[in-house]
């Protein structure tokens, strides 16, 4: 039995360590379905989805800053949408979104704002924009994307795990910078405590149900843009309903690759990821590794799962 005071993070990895390419939709689907079942403690995917996600319009908040090479993969969104579709969600009740149409398109997404099919558009789309009122938390005062405030009932945060030149870690909390109108105001120093306070803004905190971090290909240095000198493959997904715990585990993985490639830790590189502790301090989730239960599973090519090691 798990201690109910502890946070749970599910890490699902591909067994083949030599797998050094982007995942297909089918491969993502295998990882997602297993991860959701494990996270919800359910035998079936539909049972897991109904536990994790209430009925309604669901947003997929992507991270498309770095175009096709270093953004949330289309295949991941396709796989998740297919899973939700099989669990009773209408296609049109899914909105894949980010800051701008341009960024989504450059990351490979096909825009669709119609009432047919899966929707996909940016906050800068016609008639969308930002909330009329400011939302405040601590040092942050921002307008929030109307996709989050007005159009979706719940949101799944779909960041890609990567290094960030200022924040250190770009994961789930950092991804929500793409939901506000003034992210440029909240970077120095090291996005602390801003990354925490942004995720604590009412529409973000109340609607984020799940974080699924894409940790297939890791930009372990020189992020958040794409730089192929510092890429490696982890081949996994990180899932949790605790956004801080998900990021904390993601940080372990990022630091592992930095060590593997003889790079200094983020702290040694003057980019300590303090915002996770700040997030924990305001009750967003758990930042202490010792208080996080990490279930790591390895999936083989036949779809069979076995217990694995995080690193």
């Amino acid at each position, binding site marked *: 039995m798990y201690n109910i005071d502890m946070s749970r993070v599910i890490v699902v990895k591909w067994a083949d360590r030599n797998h050094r390419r982007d995942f297909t939709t089918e491969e993502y689907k295998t990882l997602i379905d297993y991860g959701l079942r494990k996270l919800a403690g359910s035998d079936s995917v539909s049972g897991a989805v109904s536990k994790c996600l209430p009925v309604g319009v669901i947003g997929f908040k992507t991270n498309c800053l770095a175009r096709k090479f270093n953004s949330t993969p289309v295949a991941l969104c396709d796989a998740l949408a297919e899973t939700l579709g099989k669990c009773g969600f209408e296609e049109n009740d899914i909105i894949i979104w980010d800051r701008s149409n341009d960024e989504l398109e450059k990351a490979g997404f096909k825009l669709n704002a119609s009432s047919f099919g899966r929707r996909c558009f940016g906050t800068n789309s016609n008639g969308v924009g930002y909330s009329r009122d*400011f939302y405040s938390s601590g040092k942050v005062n921002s307008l929030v994307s109307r996709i989050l405030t007005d159009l979706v009932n719940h949101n799944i945060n779909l960041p890609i795990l990567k290094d960030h030149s200022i924040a250190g870690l770009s994961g789930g909390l950092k991804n929500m910078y793409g939901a506000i109108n003034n992210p440029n105001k909240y970077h120095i120093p090291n996005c602390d405590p801003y990354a925490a306070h942004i995720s604590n803004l009412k529409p973000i905190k109340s609607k984020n149900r799940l974080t699924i971090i894409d940790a297939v290909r890791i930009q372990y240095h020189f992020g958040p843009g794409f730089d192929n000198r510092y890429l490696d493959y982890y081949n996994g997904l990180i899932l949790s309903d605790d956004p801080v715990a998900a990021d904390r585990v993601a940080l372990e993985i990022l630091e592992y690759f930095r060590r593997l490639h003889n790079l200094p830790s983020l702290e040694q590189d003057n980019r300590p990821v303090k915002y996770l502790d700040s997030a924990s301090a305001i009750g967003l989730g758990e930042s202490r590794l010792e208080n996080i239960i990490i279930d790591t599973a390895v999936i083989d090519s036949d779809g069979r799962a076995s217990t694995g090691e995080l690193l």
Partner: protein
Amino acid sequence: MMKRRYFLKCLGCGAVLTATSQTGLIPGIIGGIQNAWALDFTHELSDMEARYYKKLENGGVECILCPRHCRVTDLERGYCGVRENRKDVYHTLVYGRPCAVNIDPIEKKPLFHFYPGTTAFSLATAGCNCNCKFCQNYDISQSRPEQTDNMNLPPEEIVSSCLSRKVPIIAYTYSEPVIFYEYMYDTAKLGREKGIKSVMITGGYIEKDPLADLLNHLDAVKVDLKAIRDGYYKNIVDSELRPILNAILQIKKAGVWLELVYLVVPTLNDSESEFKDLASWIKTNLGLDTPLHFSRFYPQYLLKDLPPTPEKTLQMAHDICRAEGLEYVYLGNLPRHPAESTYCPKCGKVLIERAGYRILQNNLKGNYCSYCGHEIPGRY
């Protein structure tokens, strides 16, 4: 390129219109143009290489335009939100892309000793390198340029419009002109070549070298000296005091006409000691004849829980500075207050009587008091 062409007809001077946005963007200010005016709207941002940045050894760039010195990696932006690193080339996204355009009385800036009674073609882009909690233009200053409705208005068009409409001054204002430095610089330079003057309405948070270059093409600068305490700058402005004082000294030394505004915010920068220190600093460093405007605060943006500045506080500020010897102390946002007008420091007579932005009488003869002949500083 997506473009929309708007025609505005015969709008009154000083009126402000808000664009009806079809895009879900934060609307800009498009108004006050005196005659029929065609405005080209565009969704395209500029991609001109920015000035005043350096490439870093290990990748990324460092902006050296303002004292913030943002270090920016690929695809990221500086604090201002309008400068972006693209493969280690820093770009300005707002060159020729104003979101606010208006023709204002010069008194609105306020500049009281600079061609009183004239008008200024006033413009701003999105973005700011500070985040004042009392900002009255936060809808554009705290936005990124893709969040505002922007026009395509190159410097040549501004200058030619000013010439054809006989508008003698261009004012870079509303948000923070420092962040659209290249656009301001080129427009001011071209304007001077064609006989149009340029004034910058700024918070003064700019580095020494870019300011020095810019001052070669400016005729006047109004600096919002928001406080005389660094703590206020840190907590309310998200900035720092020292570089701003340095910029003010630099402007004064360059001989460009200078006026100061101090927004009096209840409980935050309105103590007697602060007014005394302010007066003392101006007296020591700029001279007694530097115009100083105290402006009344109204609840705005993130300071909606504070009341408007009481008139007695403004009067106290005025009296302290006058007692210290400052000769031109004005009170703003207090219509019909006697301290809206300019008085001769020698004979005490009214030189320029104002009611809001209107000039009721002007008793100057060139730069001199028409009653006693005392020289009045400024540009007339």
